[in-house]
């Protein structure tokens, strides 16, 4: 039995994540159980943890603090594989510019910045914000979660803020939208994605399958 806890702190489309994980487990013939919960004990008992998040960072951080999710994630990160998705990834950083500035968990070094108005591509064409849709991800470092995911595969993004980190060695994937930005980060047994693997069809489901088999080492 492979138990996956999806941390439920009231933010995010947890059902999409849970359904995608169940689907991947079923297709692989693995005995995967998904629990959607905020209960620290259940999360501690799980084999691996998913930290999702959508919406505004201020509301996410407020709920993370209220339910002490930071401690839960910190504990999980010490002992088991963790997959952080979208605002879940952003919440791991030091600080976000969103909502006039919000302090985040500070588990990974770096900040979350706004794309800016007047964003343009190389040819000078205007780019919309949010960055919404399927963009290519360049794998900048090998990682077990990239197994069988072709380089430059497209993943589904929807975000107006992006992560910047001074520690480039943490960056495992990049995408380009007006500028080159971080698509994925990895540190020890945590892997974080700005995109939504649960909505990224084959490439995303492959990545989730890799996460289900990952022991947290490189």
């Amino acid at each position, binding site marked *: 039995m492979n138990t996956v806890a999806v941390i439920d702190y009231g933010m995010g*489309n947890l059902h999409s994540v849970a359904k*995608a994980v169940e689907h991947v487990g079923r297709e692989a013939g693995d005995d995967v159980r998904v629990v959607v919960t905020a209960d620290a004990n259940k999360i501690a008992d799980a084999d691996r943890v998913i930290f999702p998040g*959508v919406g505004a960072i201020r509301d996410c951080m407020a709920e993370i603090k209220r339910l002490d999710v930071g401690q839960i994630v910190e504990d999980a990160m010490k002992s088991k594989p963790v997959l952080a998705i979208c605002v879940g990834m952003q919440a791991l950083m030091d600080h976000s510019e969103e909502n006039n500035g919000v302090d985040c968990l500070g588990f990974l070094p770096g900040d979350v910045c706004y794309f800016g108005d007047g964003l343009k591509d190389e040819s000078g064409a205007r780019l919309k914000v*949010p960055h919404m849709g*399927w963009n290519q991800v360049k794998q900048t470092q090998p990682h077990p979660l990239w197994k069988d995911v072709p380089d430059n595969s497209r993943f589904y*993004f929807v975000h107006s803020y992006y992560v910047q980190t001074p520690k480039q060695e943490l960056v495992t994937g990049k*995408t380009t939208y007006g500028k080159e930005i971080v698509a994925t980060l990895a540190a020890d047994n945590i892997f974080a994605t700005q995109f939504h693997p*649960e909505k990224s069809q084959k490439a995303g489901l492959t990545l989730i399958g890799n996460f289900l088999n990952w022991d947290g080492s490189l």
Partner: protein
Amino acid sequence: MALAKRIIPCLDCDNGRVVKGVKFLDIRDAGDPVEIAKRYCDAGADEITFLDITASHEGRDTTVHTVEKIAGQVFIPLTVGGGIRTLEDIRTMLNAGADKVAINTAAVDNPEFVREAAERFGSQCIVVAVDAKQVSAEGEPPKWEIFTHGGRKPTGLDTIEWVKRMVSYGAGEILLTSMDRDGTKIGFDLALNKAVSNAVQVPIIASGGVGNLQHLVDGVIEGEADAVLAASIFHFGEYTVQEAKDYMAEKGIEVRSL
């Protein structure tokens, strides 16, 4: 390396069946929504939009159930619209597995609803759907008015002003349907699309009027749409989603290949 333009097949559903009408009338049965959604997804659809046109209250349960079934099999973004009037309706659809909801009439009745919805659930899942109809005469500067109730009820709202307002209230995306073109198969209202796309920062989904693959290309290039939505050309087997993508790629548009 660039963001792909999205192709979004739309399933108009009545009591659990996909239907498609011409100018919101003359409805034809096109099949089972779960099967159809799966087929489109396998053929490379970038998202699925599910619009519920079921009138009866009992039918709503069928809709939730259908959304659940689609979401369990289709791992691309799913937008659900039709009859979304309360925060509870949004919660129900998100719990059923929708990623975004499209709000139309309820936004016109109570614009603050959009603000509340975006604050509660985040702009990324709030799509404001607008049905626009040209009201200026030939030779006049173009003007489009917002209509509700399937195009029967004028609101007096100017489309450009309305869309700007909705974005300022937190709409993360605009689903723009031309009532003049819907079901006609003569192509999108490109002037409308371009005007709306240039008025706001968020992505625009062009809808209404697609009859062939060149219309999709025109919507992106001339109409400056970020995504194109079509129903009948896919439902009745005239084209597959894959053919649409191949054609768009041939014309130099960035699309996602499988």
